[in-house]
């Protein structure tokens, strides 16, 4: 098979504007497609990275999310005594009982209120989650109305920066520290003393219990033990899987919406590519006849025109991905539809997104170029040579 790549390439260049428009059509579609994938990938990364493999989270059975979960102190004490839980050097179980409540706070730039999760934690919470790092200020002192703020909340919401105060639970809370957690969902939360928060909200029960395992392999046994204990009505999850599951609804929604939009857009790009290719086949009928007369076969003609279409759409795809890659510099926030809390994350590129987008571009090129290419290859030589074009 002899492909005439040089010929295809030079024809694309020669068509200038027409080629440019069909490339931009594909570029636009690929931009949208890649942007959606980057969005859901970014969201997944943020939520999946929330939590550790060694950790276990316990919530009330059938309560879906931490916010809806209610765990009284006696249940917490039973769980805390489980033998699978790791202990620190001082002999204390690496275990924390927390509450999670949502408050409404205006954003810095728009003044529009949105949900912010407030987590009541214990000093042990930092040991359970070693990725959490106080980067400015200090940890709150026990028994005070002090809180620390995740880096993303601090940036996005009024009153949440270092030294500022934020009012909820009929108290003013002073932000005494800012923490980072490797970009995970915790960075979108405010953390305060669990006892103070339970007081402030008049809530005598915990939302969740999080603990570190001695060995990750102990998980199944522990899960069976706790979930079958007749005194307990709890669900036991690996922490990482729990947060990933929470991400699923939102990412699934974004993916479906994005795919539908991309497909609708791509129909336009495919029709655009098809018109371009039909026009060029019509203009080059005599050239096609000449190629065939010189001894090039039908299949060479077919592949040459198909390659021309694919080359254009591939270039469009590269342009689209290039433009989409700049989205990395934007941070977006969305409502986490499980907790209805504000969640900040950014567009993330991955090799599979790039490859997927390029494949999508190539498929558009094939879809748009196939029929015109078939038409070109079907021409009878004598008829093609008699054409004006």
């Amino acid at each position, binding site marked *: 098979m*002899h492909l*005439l790549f*040089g*010929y295809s390439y*030079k*024809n694309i*260049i*020669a068509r200038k504007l027409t080629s440019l428009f069909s490339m931009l059509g594909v570029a636009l579609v690929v931009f949208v497609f890649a942007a959606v994938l980057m969005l859901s990938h970014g969201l997944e990364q943020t939520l999946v990275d929330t939590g550790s493999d060694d950790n276990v989270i316990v919530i009330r059975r059938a309560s879906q999310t931490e916010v809806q979960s209610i765990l009284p102190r006696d249940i917490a004490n039973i769980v805390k005594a489980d033998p699978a839980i790791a202990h620190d050097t001082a002999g204390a179980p690496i275990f924390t009982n927390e509450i999670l409540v949502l408050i409404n706070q205006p954003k810095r730039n728009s003044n529009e209120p949105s949900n912010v999760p407030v987590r009541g934690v214990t000093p042990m919470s930092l040991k359970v989650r070693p990725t959490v790092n106080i980067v400015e200020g200090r940890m709150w002192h026990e028994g005070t109305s002090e809180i620390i703020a995740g880096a993303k909340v601090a940036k996005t919401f009024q009153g949440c920066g270092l030294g500022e105060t934020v009012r909820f639970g009929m108290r003013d809370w002073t932000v005494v520290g800012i923490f980072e957690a490797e970009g995970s969902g915790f960075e979108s939360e405010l953390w305060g003393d669990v006892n103070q928060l339970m007081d402030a909200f008049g809530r005598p029960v915990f939302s969740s219990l999080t603990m570190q395992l001695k060995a990750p392999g102990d998980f199944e046994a522990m899960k069976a033990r706790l979930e079958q204990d007749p005194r307990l009505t709890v669900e036991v999850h690996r922490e990482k899987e729990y947060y990933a599951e929470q991400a699923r609804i939102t990412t699934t929604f974004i993916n479906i919406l994005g795919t539908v939009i991309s497909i609708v857009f791509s129909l336009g790009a495919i029709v655009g590519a098809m018109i371009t290719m039909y026009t060029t086949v019509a203009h080059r009928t*005599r*050239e096609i*006849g*000449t*190629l*065939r*007369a*010189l*001894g*090039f*076969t*039908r299949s060479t003609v077919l592949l040459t025109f198909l390659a021309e279409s694919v080359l254009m759409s591939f270039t469009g795809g590269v342009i689209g991905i290039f433009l989409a890659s700049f989205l990395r510099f934007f941070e977006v926030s969305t409502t986490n539809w499980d907790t209805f809390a504000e969640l900040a994350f950014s567009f993330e590129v991955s090799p599979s997104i790039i490859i997927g987008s390029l494949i999508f571009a190539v498929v558009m090129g094939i879809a748009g170029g196939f029929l015109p290419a078939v038409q070109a290859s079907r021409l009878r*030589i*004598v008829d093609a*040579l008699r054409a004006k074009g």
Partner: protein
Amino acid sequence: MAETLVKLEDVSKSYWRDSIEIPVLHHINLEILTGEFVALMGPSGSGKTTLLNLIAGIDRPSQGRVIFEHEDLSTLSEGDLARWRSRHIGFVFQFYNLMPVLTAFENVELPLLLTKLSRAERHKQVETALAIVGLADRMKHYPNQLSGGQEQRVAIARAIVTDPDLILADEPTGDLDKQSAEEIMDLLAQLNKDFGKTITMVTHDPRAAEHARVIHRLDKGELETA
């Protein structure tokens, strides 16, 4: 005594348009000998191009056989016929039929892409062909940067670059001014005389036909030899 290169045996050709048969060629018998320079003349619509296309293996006869060096072309499949054309036939068109996006060099190189020649060998052959037609200094020019006569020279270079057994030219001077036409005719005559190329040329121009050694006339699909 020269050998027979092409032999047409009782060849008839009809085209079909809207299920109406349009007879074009009637029971043509023709022999072209190796080394001959044949002119094919006749009024418009008499079937000259059609006959040339049948010899070139671009079209198939409705009846009869085209035999090329003892090979019956009707036995070849479509793909085999394409490969056969690339090896044995060089075609020169009235309107040159160069690819406008390719340079003179690239146009001449096109038929060589169908051979197993290396890039270096291809380049050498293209340069030789362009030198023969006197356009060694125009290799990088695009067709729209060349005069009609120069374009036709490029087309002739493309036709000879594979060193084919038979050069077919359909009114090669039909679109040229007198001066350029004369130059093209001289070139074809030189290819025939100096390089021993077998040429069959369709022409309206009696002066062009003077260069040929054999003249056939077609009239309403019937052949007579002058």
